């Protein structure tokens, strides 16, 4: 039979029409939609025996106790530990997402060595032995050339055995360049040292104070130990504690306070001095305390009376003088008032004058080392290791000044000044930094002026990252020696930030290490052994775990059993010994070095003509901006008025927007003297006109595809501003302009 063109076409069309009219296509579509629902890629989690492991979360300095639920050998849920002194069952969203960090795609699964150029993302897998011996060889070369001081270490923490091992290693090797990541603790430590003569942790007895005056601290926006602060906030609500928040933007802390007082940014120190003026002038201060415990009151009093009248302060701060007077009276008349300084979640320092001015307020009302006041908290002293073996090279190396200038003639009392590091790094033979180790920190993301830091890092011949995750610093390293994450390793965890009662927690392996990672403590021991000589002798332990066990002694068994140790009966330090100043008192004026609480404005970058607006950062619990980035769960909680697709929104007062001719949702270019970025506009009545606010915690290039490439990293738009008195980075913002894209 011959099929013609016409016959063929009618057969095809007829067949198609016939099939379409039959139930067949609909049945197939129905079936396929049902089948595809049943396809096995929807996982069926295996059931098994349930068990619970107590440990400590170290994703932030909050150090909450956690209880991890396991099914057989899988960890399935992290919960807050009941009865823990920090969080008593509560837990924050980052802590809850820990298992996504444990099992997630952002993990570095094995030691990696860079093959392409820095930051290109080309790696080869390398064995642990090769990786460690490569580092050891380099360190041996540097040391034999007589430059051990050119090795640096950046650590996220400086307390506990792991950090002490880093420091010990550097000292035995011959380098003074151990650096801690900056935070408001730097300012407080220095203020306490200058005024009280002690090196101690700042502790705040918020639980017992009845009037809290916060100069911009985001007390419930991630400050200190976030879960503890949430609990404290609820207690304040129940007890009717007065909370006053002073800052130019309505943060969550401001919204939840009794009174939000907007202030011109950067003038918080002036307000503190203005309040002191009223308190002194109206004799509202604690005369007993001043007489017995305070030195230099009368000289300071004259300064305060002379220079900081409410009218003067009103013109600086933009707060009317009546409000200043009422606020000062309210503060001084409360029975346990507490003033606290520092912006946002406290990951940036403030200038030392501001910190001292606020701290002086606490002294005026006599609330130092008292219930409901500010304490200098001493650390539990449990690390008693044998003396460090110093050979000639180590001793010579330790004679050098620190690269960041901390402890130098200019900044004698500041302990760490990491933001000053990039400018000291030069290229070429004489590079003062030949090798840099980074652990528990992500300076290439968290440091202001990220590009400059990256350029500086590029000049360091060897950068080694101990990061468990592919963060920005790991991406730009030469070698990554991945640490176990906190759910896979032993580590003791000292007192959480801002707490007054000493706590030691034990972080312990909840599951077996998931990948070919190694405890950073063990790697340090191995490096020391590899170097041999006095360095090796300084580390008599076989493994980190045995070092920890030996260090803790009896405490080890207690911690294994209970999970944490705390001194609930912690008493304020005894007055006679708690001031180690020359006068033995709280010094408002330190005669040795001339430090005195006063207001010195920080001159921020950019001039008003080119940059009519002011850019400030803001922090949110939902955006982790430290060495950990948001896991996928936390990204889900970010509001669509902050991030939409890949675009981040800047907050702008509708008034500012009108002046600039901008409207909601408009795409604009945000320019500062340090950088440029495309963003969108979100109108928010809760921000002072003339300001632009950008959230911190976005704009990652590392981590995973759930986080990377979204929004802008605030730190690319701002640079550090050195406080001339302390060297600390005192930048609270930068001048900026917005233009239509």
């Amino acid at each position, binding site marked *: 039979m011959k099929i013609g063109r016409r016959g063929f076409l009618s057969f095809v069309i007829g067949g198609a029409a016939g099939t379409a009219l039959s139930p067949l296509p609909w049945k197939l579509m129905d079936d396929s939609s049902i089948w595809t629902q049943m396809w096995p890629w*929807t996982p069926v*989690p295996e059931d098994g025996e349930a068990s619970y492991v107590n440990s400590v979360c170290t994703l932030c300095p909050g150090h909450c106790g956690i209880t991890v639920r396991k*099914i057989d050998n899988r960890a399935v849920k992290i919960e807050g530990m009941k009865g823990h002194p920090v969080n008593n069952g509560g837990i*924050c*969203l980052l802590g809850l997402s820990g298992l996504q960090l444990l099992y*997630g*795609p952002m993990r570095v699964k094995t030691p990696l060595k860079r093959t392409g150029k820095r930051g290109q993302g080309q790696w080869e897998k390398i064995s642990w032995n090769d990786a460690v011996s490569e580092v050891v060889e380099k360190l041996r070369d540097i040391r034999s050339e007589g430059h051990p001081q050119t090795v640096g270490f950046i650590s996220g923490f400086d307390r506990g055995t792991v950090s002490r091992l880093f420091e010990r290693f550097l000292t035995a090797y011959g380098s003074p360049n151990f650096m801690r990541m900056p935070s408001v603790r730097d300012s407080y430590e220095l203020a306490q040292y200058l005024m009280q003569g002690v090196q101690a942790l700042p502790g705040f007895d918020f639980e017992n104070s009845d009037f809290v005056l916060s100069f911009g601290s985001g007390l419930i926006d991630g400050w200190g130990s976030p879960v503890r602060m949430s609990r404290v906030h609820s207690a304040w609500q129940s007890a009717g504690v007065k909370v006053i928040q002073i800052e130019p933007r*309505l943060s969550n802390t401001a919204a939840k306070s009794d009174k939000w007082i907007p202030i011109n940014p950067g003038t918080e120190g002036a307000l503190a001095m203005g309040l002191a003026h009223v308190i002194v002038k109206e004799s509202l201060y604690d005369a007993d305390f001043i007489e017995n415990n305070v030195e230099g009151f009368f000289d300071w009093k004259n300064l305060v009376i002379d220079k900081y009248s409410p009218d003067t302060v009103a013109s600086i701060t933009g707060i009317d003088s009546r409000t200043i007077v009422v606020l000062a009276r309210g503060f001084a008349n409360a029975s346990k008032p507490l003033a606290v300084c520092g912006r946002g979640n406290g990951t940036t320092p403030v200038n030392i004058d501001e910190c001292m001015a606020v701290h002086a307020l606490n002294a005026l009302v006599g609330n130092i080392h008292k219930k409901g006041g500010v304490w200098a908290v001493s650390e539990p002293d449990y690390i008693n290791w044998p003396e460090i073996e110093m050979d000639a090279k180590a001793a010579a190396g330790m004679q050098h000044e620190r690269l960041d200038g901390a402890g130098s003639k200019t900044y004698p009392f500041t302990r760490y000044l990491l933001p000053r590091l990039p400018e000291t790094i030069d290229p070429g033979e004489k590079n003062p930094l030949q090798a840099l180790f980074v652990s528990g920190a992500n300076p290439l993301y968290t440091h202001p002026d990220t590009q400059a830091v990256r350029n500086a890092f590029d000049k360091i011949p060897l950068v080694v990252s101990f990061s468990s995750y592919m963060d920005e610093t790991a991406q730009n390293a030469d070698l990554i020696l991945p640490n176990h994450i906190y759910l896979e390793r032993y580590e003791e965890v000292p007192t959480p930030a801002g707490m007054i009662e000493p706590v030691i927690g034990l972080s312990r392996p909840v599951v077996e290490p998931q990948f070919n990672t190694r405890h950073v403590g063990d790697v340090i021991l191995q490096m020391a052994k590899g170097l041999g000589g006095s360095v090796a002798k300084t580390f008599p332990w076989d493994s980190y775990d045995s070092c920890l066990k030996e260090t803790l002694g009896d405490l080890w068994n207690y911690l294994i059993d209970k999970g944490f140790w705390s001194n609930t009966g912690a008493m304020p330090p005894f007055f006679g010994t708690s001031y180690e100043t020359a006068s033995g008192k709280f010094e408002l004026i330190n005669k040795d070095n001339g430090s005195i609480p006063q207001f010195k404005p920080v001159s921020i970058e950019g001039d008003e003509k080119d940059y009519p607006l002011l850019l400030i950062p803001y922090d949110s619990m*939902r955006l982790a901006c430290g060495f950990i980035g948001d896991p996928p769960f936390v990204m889900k909680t970010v509001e669509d008025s902050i*991030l939409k697709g890949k675009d981040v929104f800047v907050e702008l007062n509708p008034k500012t927007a009108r002046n600039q001719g901008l409207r909601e949702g408009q795409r604009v270019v945000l320019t500062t003297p340090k950088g440029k970025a495309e963003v969108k506009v979100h109108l928010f009545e809760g921000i002072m006109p003339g300001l632009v606010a950008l959230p911190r915690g976005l704009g990652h290039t590392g981590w995973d595809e759930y986080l990377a490439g979204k929004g802008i990293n605030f730190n690319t738009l701002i640079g550090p501003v050195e406080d001339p008195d302390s060297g600390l980075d005192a930048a609270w913002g930068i001048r900026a302009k917005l233009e239509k894209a």
Partner: protein
Amino acid sequence: MKEGRTHKRFQKFGMVIDLDKCTGCGSCMVACMAENNVPFRKDESNKLLSITWMRVYKLTNGMPFPETDVCYLPRPCMQCAGQHEGHSPCVSVCPAIATDYSMESGIVSQIYTRCFGCRYCMASCPYHARYFNWWDPIWPDGMEKYLSPNVSPRMRGVVEKCSFCFHRYQRAKDRAYMEGRRELQEDEYQTACTQACPAGAITFGDLNNPKHAVSEMVEPDPKHSGRPKNPNAFRLLERLGTNPKVYYLSSREWVRRAGDNYLKNEKKVKKPVHHG
């Protein structure tokens, strides 16, 4: 069976969220995701598509600077009882009995394998508490290890929502039965969000039990479908008559007013209007 049931004292599990204490941190949202195997995608910024059984809304009072105020409002499923116990908006419209009202616990269930994805329930829910799975859930390689066996991961094409962590209720009941008890203690059954909330802003318990904290806090009035007697307490869209089991507390009037739709000059909160 039916006889046995009538002898049982019914429970009505409910939640009270203190908005004065809530800091808007979002921990409840993540506690819920981690507990209930909620999937996630690369872009979660389109909130119509982002599955969050518990979602924290940001409310503003709309006043200009510096009178502006902000409050956060966590929104789980309201577990509506309707005007006559069991007449929840979603249960009434489900053609597949995939969602049902439990007379024993007062919890609105969702049975994924029965759901065929018509999404009537989503249209009927005035709280946007229901979410549709437009895609199959995909966990990155290895991450499915953390999935809990107590809650089945959902497939594409079904609706899901907050269950008041019903599996925790089952677990607690099983444990009690093993120990020869028939009654649960108040703290034995708590939802994941309640347990995690760092501020302790969420309270969970039996609204039918006057000794439970939830009843003491809001004093539900049984004569008026559980309307709270506490003047600081309110329910969302009270006047729709959905009879939700989630109550909110706020000392701020503008927040309480934001819980329902009011005309501009309307002053007092009116009695609920009964529709149908």
